[in-house]
């Protein structure tokens, strides 16, 4: 129990401030803290992205570790979080449980890019 509270406090104290964008969800507009860090790359992944016939593909992924009270698994597919002037959507999301208690949520984030943005 102590460990669970400790993780939550660490996320709130040292995490990045994010704004939830999830229309139709009660979490819409909520500002909260979470850890966000770039994912490290392995073979066949390109740090500088790649070009496809329909445009430049940004291949940057970010690891999200968020507080247990922000249930990202219940959010609609189109949900995103915003920070540093950009939005990111959740590609994969999971809840981490310790016994019966939710400890944190993790996800992989990918930048939301609108149509027509220049390279």
């Amino acid at each position, binding site marked *: 129990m102590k460990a669970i509270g400790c993780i939550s406090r660490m996320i709130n104290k040292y995490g990045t401030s994010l704004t939830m964008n999830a229309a139709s969800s009660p979490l819409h507009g909520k500002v909260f803290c979470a850890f966000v860090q770039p994912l490290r790359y392995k073979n066949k992944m390109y740090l500088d992205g790649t070009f*496809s*016939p*329909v*445009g430049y*593909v940004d291949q940057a992924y970010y690891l999200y570790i968020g507080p247990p009270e922000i249930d990202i698994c219940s959010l609609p597919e189109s949900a995103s979080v915003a920070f540093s002037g950009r939005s990111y*959507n959740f590609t994969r999301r999971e809840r981490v449980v310790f016994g019966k208690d939710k400890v944190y949520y993790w996800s992989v984030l990918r930048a*939301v890019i609108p149509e027509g*943005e220049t390279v």
Partner: protein
Amino acid sequence: MTDFRSIVANIRLYFSSKTDFSDVLFTTEYPALKKSQPLSRPTVSVGIEAVDDRKTENVYDETVTPNVLLYNRETAINLRFIIHVPQSCGGLKCYELLTRLDSAIMDNTFNYSFDRIRCGSIEYDRDIGAFVQKVIIGITERTIMTA
């Protein structure tokens, strides 16, 4: 001289301006733009797969006197349309777009002489996050070589 750049640009413009395709984004291949992430709507890239440019015998219109030279050069161009469909639309949407492309090129307002159309199977592209299908449309231009 055949201006391949203009052919691709004109064909993109032709499809972009058709109201039947208002839900589809047409782009020339490898634009200097970022792909929307996630793919916002069905997107079709237009480019050239192959060109076969050759001299032919002089072909005249013999219904008029004196005969008028119609063409002495034939350029066969295989245009490559790559259909990209967001995951949420499902793969069948590729066939729907293929059907619409096919009927549009049969339209009388299509300025190029259409010869053939063929397509490959639907595949999933993980980087793009879309179902992808390649469609080849063959056109032939007959022109007069002046030099």
